[in-house]
Protein backbone atom coordinates (compact mmCIF):
# COMPACT_ATOMS: atom_id res chain seq x y z
CA UNK A 1 0.00 0.00 0.00
CA UNK A 2 1.22 3.46 -0.87
CA UNK A 3 0.50 6.49 1.24
CA UNK A 4 -0.55 9.53 -0.81
CA UNK A 5 1.58 12.69 -0.69
CA UNK A 6 -1.14 14.44 1.34
CA UNK A 7 -1.41 11.58 3.83
CA UNK A 8 2.36 11.36 4.17
CA UNK A 9 2.48 15.06 4.94
CA UNK A 10 -0.38 14.71 7.41
CA UNK A 11 1.50 11.84 9.07
CA UNK A 12 4.59 13.96 9.60
CA UNK A 13 2.58 16.96 10.76
CA UNK A 14 0.79 14.87 13.37
CA UNK A 15 4.16 13.55 14.51
CA UNK A 16 5.48 17.11 14.77
CA UNK A 17 2.48 18.18 16.86
CA UNK A 18 2.75 15.20 19.15
CA UNK A 19 6.48 15.59 19.79
CA UNK A 20 6.10 19.30 20.39
CA UNK A 21 3.36 18.72 22.96
CA UNK A 22 5.25 15.87 24.62
CA UNK A 23 8.64 17.60 24.61
CA UNK A 24 9.00 17.64 28.39
CA UNK A 25 7.79 14.06 28.66
CA UNK A 26 10.61 13.00 26.30
CA UNK A 27 13.12 15.06 28.25
CA UNK A 28 11.99 13.38 31.46
CA UNK A 29 12.40 9.89 30.05
CA UNK A 30 15.89 10.88 28.87
CA UNK A 31 16.74 12.37 32.26
CA UNK A 32 16.19 9.00 33.89
CA UNK A 33 18.56 7.03 31.68
CA UNK A 34 20.37 9.55 29.49
CA UNK A 35 21.22 13.23 29.36
CA UNK A 36 17.74 14.70 29.49
CA UNK A 37 17.64 16.33 26.08
CA UNK A 38 15.69 14.01 23.79
CA UNK A 39 12.59 16.23 23.89
CA UNK A 40 14.58 19.39 23.31
CA UNK A 41 16.53 17.74 20.50
CA UNK A 42 13.46 16.37 18.73
CA UNK A 43 11.60 19.64 19.22
CA UNK A 44 14.39 21.46 17.37
CA UNK A 45 14.04 18.93 14.57
CA UNK A 46 10.24 19.34 14.48
CA UNK A 47 10.54 23.12 14.14
CA UNK A 48 13.00 22.62 11.31
CA UNK A 49 10.54 20.30 9.51
CA UNK A 50 7.74 22.85 9.84
CA UNK A 51 10.07 25.59 8.56
CA UNK A 52 11.18 23.50 5.62
CA UNK A 53 7.58 22.58 4.67
CA UNK A 54 6.54 26.22 4.79
CA UNK A 55 9.53 27.34 2.73
CA UNK A 56 8.98 24.75 0.04
CA UNK A 57 5.94 22.55 -0.24
CA UNK A 58 7.21 19.00 -0.96
CA UNK A 59 6.20 17.96 -4.47
CA UNK A 60 6.33 14.23 -4.00
CA UNK A 61 7.00 11.52 -1.44
CA UNK A 62 10.67 11.37 -2.32
CA UNK A 63 11.29 15.05 -1.63
CA UNK A 64 9.05 15.00 1.44
CA UNK A 65 11.10 12.26 3.07
CA UNK A 66 14.28 14.03 2.07
CA UNK A 67 13.10 17.30 3.58
CA UNK A 68 12.29 15.54 6.85
CA UNK A 69 15.68 13.80 6.80
CA UNK A 70 17.67 16.99 6.27
CA UNK A 71 15.76 18.92 8.92
CA UNK A 72 16.45 16.17 11.47
CA UNK A 73 20.08 15.64 10.46
CA UNK A 74 20.84 19.33 10.63
CA UNK A 75 18.95 20.44 13.68
CA UNK A 76 18.44 17.67 16.25
CA UNK A 77 21.98 17.71 17.67
CA UNK A 78 21.67 14.37 19.52
CA UNK A 79 22.01 10.76 18.45
CA UNK A 80 18.36 10.76 17.37
CA UNK A 81 19.30 13.24 14.59
CA UNK A 82 21.55 11.02 12.49
CA UNK A 83 19.33 8.03 13.39
CA UNK A 84 15.92 9.37 12.30
CA UNK A 85 17.76 11.35 9.62
CA UNK A 86 19.31 8.25 8.10
CA UNK A 87 15.99 6.39 8.30
CA UNK A 88 14.15 9.12 6.38
CA UNK A 89 17.01 9.66 3.92
CA UNK A 90 17.07 5.96 3.08
CA UNK A 91 13.26 5.98 2.80
CA UNK A 92 13.50 8.92 0.41
CA UNK A 93 15.99 7.06 -1.79
CA UNK A 94 13.88 3.90 -1.72
CA UNK A 95 10.71 5.82 -2.61
CA UNK A 96 12.22 6.63 -5.99
CA UNK A 97 11.65 2.96 -7.01
CA UNK A 98 9.11 1.70 -4.57
CA UNK A 99 6.94 3.81 -2.29
CA UNK A 100 5.09 0.92 -0.68
CA UNK A 101 4.58 1.88 2.98
CA UNK A 102 5.76 -1.45 4.37
CA UNK A 103 8.86 -1.36 2.19
CA UNK A 104 9.63 2.18 3.28
CA UNK A 105 9.34 1.45 7.00
CA UNK A 106 11.53 -1.63 6.55
CA UNK A 107 14.05 0.51 4.68
CA UNK A 108 14.01 3.08 7.49
CA UNK A 109 14.53 0.32 10.03
CA UNK A 110 17.54 -0.99 8.12
CA UNK A 111 18.92 2.58 8.05
CA UNK A 112 18.58 2.86 11.82
CA UNK A 113 20.43 -0.41 12.33
CA UNK A 114 23.22 0.65 10.02
CA UNK A 115 23.64 4.11 11.54
CA UNK A 116 23.36 2.89 15.13
CA UNK A 117 25.30 -0.32 14.59
CA UNK A 118 22.53 -1.79 16.63
CA UNK A 119 19.64 -4.19 16.52
CA UNK A 120 16.36 -4.98 18.21
CA UNK A 121 16.62 -5.78 21.94
CA UNK A 122 19.22 -3.14 22.81
CA UNK A 123 16.63 -0.80 24.35
CA UNK A 124 16.52 1.78 21.60
CA UNK A 125 13.99 3.17 19.13
CA UNK A 126 14.60 0.04 17.04
CA UNK A 127 12.49 -1.91 19.52
CA UNK A 128 9.49 0.04 18.19
CA UNK A 129 10.43 0.24 14.50
CA UNK A 130 11.01 -3.49 14.10
CA UNK A 131 7.66 -4.78 15.46
CA UNK A 132 5.85 -2.06 13.49
CA UNK A 133 7.66 -3.06 10.29
CA UNK A 134 6.80 -6.69 10.94
CA UNK A 135 3.17 -5.90 11.71
CA UNK A 136 2.80 -3.83 8.54
CA UNK A 137 4.15 -6.74 6.55
CA UNK A 138 1.69 -9.14 8.19
CA UNK A 139 -1.06 -6.55 7.75
CA UNK A 140 -1.64 -6.53 11.51
CA UNK A 141 -0.50 -3.04 12.42
CA UNK A 142 -2.52 -1.51 15.24
CA UNK A 143 -2.12 0.32 18.56
CA UNK A 144 -1.43 -2.84 20.51
CA UNK A 145 1.70 -3.47 18.42
CA UNK A 146 3.09 -0.16 19.63
CA UNK A 147 1.91 -0.68 23.21
CA UNK A 148 3.52 -4.08 23.41
CA UNK A 149 6.72 -2.78 21.88
CA UNK A 150 6.95 -0.10 24.58
CA UNK A 151 6.22 -2.59 27.33
CA UNK A 152 8.98 -4.91 26.25
CA UNK A 153 11.40 -2.03 25.64
CA UNK A 154 10.84 -0.88 29.22
CA UNK A 155 11.86 -4.26 30.61
CA UNK A 156 15.14 -4.42 28.69
CA UNK A 157 18.66 -3.70 29.90
CA UNK A 158 20.25 -1.14 27.53
CA UNK A 159 23.26 -2.23 25.51
CA UNK A 160 23.44 0.73 23.07
CA UNK A 161 23.23 4.49 23.50
CA UNK A 162 23.83 6.46 26.70
CA UNK A 163 21.50 4.27 28.75
CA UNK A 164 23.92 1.38 28.26
CA UNK A 165 26.27 3.00 30.81
CA UNK A 166 23.61 2.31 33.45
CA UNK A 167 23.59 -1.41 32.72
CA UNK A 168 21.10 -3.23 35.04
CA UNK A 169 19.77 0.09 36.35
CA UNK A 170 18.35 0.95 32.94
CA UNK A 171 15.76 -1.79 33.45
CA UNK A 172 12.25 -0.57 34.19
CA UNK A 173 12.72 2.71 32.34
CA UNK A 174 11.23 3.41 28.92
CA UNK A 175 13.79 4.47 26.30
CA UNK A 176 13.08 8.06 25.14
CA UNK A 177 13.76 7.23 21.48
CA UNK A 178 11.35 4.29 21.69
CA UNK A 179 8.72 6.72 22.98
CA UNK A 180 9.28 9.27 20.21
CA UNK A 181 9.13 6.45 17.66
CA UNK A 182 5.85 5.35 19.24
CA UNK A 183 4.54 8.89 18.58
CA UNK A 184 5.69 8.56 14.97
CA UNK A 185 3.77 5.35 14.45
CA UNK A 186 0.70 6.50 16.39
CA UNK A 187 0.56 9.42 13.99
CA UNK A 188 0.77 6.91 11.16
CA UNK A 189 -2.11 4.89 12.64
CA UNK A 190 -4.24 8.01 12.76
CA UNK A 191 -3.54 8.70 9.09
CA UNK A 192 -4.29 5.10 8.21
CA UNK A 193 -7.60 5.63 10.01
CA UNK A 194 -7.02 2.55 12.10
Amino acid at each position, binding site marked *: MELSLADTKKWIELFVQKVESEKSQLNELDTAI*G*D*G*DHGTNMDRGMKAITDAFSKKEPEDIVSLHKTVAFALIQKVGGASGPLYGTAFLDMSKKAKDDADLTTLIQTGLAGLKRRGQSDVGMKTMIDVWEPVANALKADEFNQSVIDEALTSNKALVATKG*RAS*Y*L*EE*KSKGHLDPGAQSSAYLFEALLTVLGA
Partner: protein
Amino acid sequence: MKYGILIVSHSKDIAIGVKKLIEQAAPKLSITTAGGTDDGEIGSSLEKIQTAVEKNSGDEILAFYDLGSSKMNLEMMIEMTDKKIHKYDVALVEGAYAAATLAEIESPLETIEKTLEPLKIK
Protein backbone atom coordinates in the same frame (compact mmCIF):
# COMPACT_ATOMS: atom_id res chain seq x y z
CA MET B 1 26.69 12.27 47.75
CA LYS B 2 29.14 9.49 48.21
CA TYR B 3 31.28 10.15 45.15
CA GLY B 4 32.42 13.32 43.47
CA ILE B 5 34.30 13.62 40.18
CA LEU B 6 37.61 15.42 39.66
CA ILE B 7 38.90 16.25 36.20
CA VAL B 8 42.57 17.13 35.79
CA SER B 9 43.61 18.23 32.33
CA HIS B 10 46.45 20.11 30.67
CA SER B 11 43.81 22.36 29.15
CA LYS B 12 41.25 24.44 31.02
CA ASP B 13 38.96 24.13 28.00
CA ILE B 14 39.04 20.33 28.11
CA ALA B 15 38.42 20.34 31.87
CA ILE B 16 35.43 22.68 31.59
CA GLY B 17 34.07 20.86 28.55
CA VAL B 18 34.21 17.47 30.24
CA LYS B 19 32.39 18.92 33.24
CA LYS B 20 29.65 20.36 31.01
CA LEU B 21 29.34 17.10 29.11
CA ILE B 22 29.03 14.88 32.13
CA GLU B 23 26.89 17.14 34.27
CA GLN B 24 24.20 16.85 31.62
CA ALA B 25 23.97 13.15 32.49
CA ALA B 26 24.82 13.61 36.17
CA PRO B 27 23.30 16.89 37.36
CA LYS B 28 23.38 16.02 41.07
CA LEU B 29 27.05 15.07 41.17
CA SER B 30 29.80 17.29 42.50
CA ILE B 31 32.20 17.74 39.58
CA THR B 32 35.25 19.95 40.05
CA THR B 33 38.04 20.67 37.61
CA ALA B 34 41.68 21.67 37.44
CA GLY B 35 42.66 22.61 33.90
CA GLY B 36 45.87 24.22 32.67
CA THR B 37 48.53 26.13 34.54
CA ASP B 38 48.01 28.95 37.04
CA ASP B 39 48.26 31.47 34.22
CA GLY B 40 45.87 29.65 31.91
CA GLU B 41 48.47 28.02 29.70
CA ILE B 42 48.58 24.37 28.63
CA GLY B 43 50.07 22.43 31.55
CA SER B 44 49.07 21.58 35.07
CA SER B 45 48.88 23.19 38.46
CA LEU B 46 49.00 21.50 41.83
CA GLU B 47 47.31 24.54 43.35
CA LYS B 48 44.36 24.21 40.97
CA ILE B 49 44.12 20.52 41.80
CA GLN B 50 44.16 21.34 45.51
CA THR B 51 41.37 23.87 45.12
CA ALA B 52 39.34 21.43 43.04
CA VAL B 53 39.74 18.75 45.70
CA GLU B 54 38.70 21.16 48.45
CA LYS B 55 35.65 22.36 46.52
CA ASN B 56 34.50 18.84 45.72
CA SER B 57 31.64 17.87 48.01
CA GLY B 58 31.82 14.11 47.39
CA ASP B 59 32.76 11.98 50.40
CA GLU B 60 35.29 10.29 48.13
CA ILE B 61 36.65 11.49 44.81
CA LEU B 62 36.92 9.66 41.49
CA ALA B 63 39.77 11.35 39.63
CA PHE B 64 40.53 11.40 35.90
CA TYR B 65 43.50 12.98 34.09
CA ASP B 66 44.92 13.31 30.59
CA LEU B 67 48.72 13.15 30.33
CA GLY B 68 52.04 13.06 32.22
CA SER B 69 52.15 16.07 34.52
CA SER B 70 48.39 15.97 35.23
CA LYS B 71 48.95 12.46 36.53
CA MET B 72 52.06 13.31 38.55
CA ASN B 73 50.48 16.37 40.13
CA LEU B 74 47.37 14.36 40.94
CA GLU B 75 49.55 11.75 42.63
CA MET B 76 51.35 14.44 44.65
CA MET B 77 47.92 15.67 45.72
CA ILE B 78 46.87 12.18 46.76
CA GLU B 79 50.00 11.94 48.93
CA MET B 80 49.23 15.32 50.52
CA THR B 81 45.53 15.12 51.30
CA ASP B 82 43.45 13.20 53.83
CA LYS B 83 40.56 12.99 51.41
CA LYS B 84 40.07 9.62 49.77
CA ILE B 85 40.88 10.02 46.06
CA HIS B 86 40.59 7.14 43.58
CA LYS B 87 42.72 7.76 40.49
CA TYR B 88 41.83 5.96 37.26
CA ASP B 89 44.25 5.32 34.41
CA VAL B 90 41.48 5.39 31.84
CA ALA B 91 40.44 7.47 28.83
CA LEU B 92 39.73 10.93 30.27
CA VAL B 93 36.49 11.95 28.56
CA GLU B 94 34.97 8.50 28.13
CA GLY B 95 36.00 7.28 31.59
CA ALA B 96 34.72 10.36 33.39
CA TYR B 97 31.42 10.12 31.51
CA ALA B 98 30.91 6.46 32.37
CA ALA B 99 31.84 6.92 36.02
CA ALA B 100 29.63 9.98 36.41
CA THR B 101 26.62 8.23 34.95
CA LEU B 102 26.97 5.43 37.47
CA ALA B 103 27.91 7.63 40.44
CA GLU B 104 24.82 9.76 39.77
CA ILE B 105 22.56 6.80 40.51
CA GLU B 106 24.60 5.88 43.60
CA SER B 107 26.13 2.75 42.10
CA PRO B 108 28.68 1.02 44.33
CA LEU B 109 32.37 1.61 43.63
CA GLU B 110 32.72 -1.99 42.55
CA THR B 111 30.23 -1.47 39.70
CA ILE B 112 31.88 1.78 38.65
CA GLU B 113 35.31 0.19 38.59
CA LYS B 114 34.08 -2.80 36.63
CA THR B 115 32.77 -0.40 33.99
CA LEU B 116 36.04 1.54 33.93
CA GLU B 117 38.18 -1.59 33.52
CA PRO B 118 37.90 -1.83 29.71
CA LEU B 119 38.63 1.92 29.40
CA LYS B 120 42.08 1.53 30.94
CA ILE B 121 44.69 2.78 28.50
CA LYS B 122 47.45 4.25 30.66
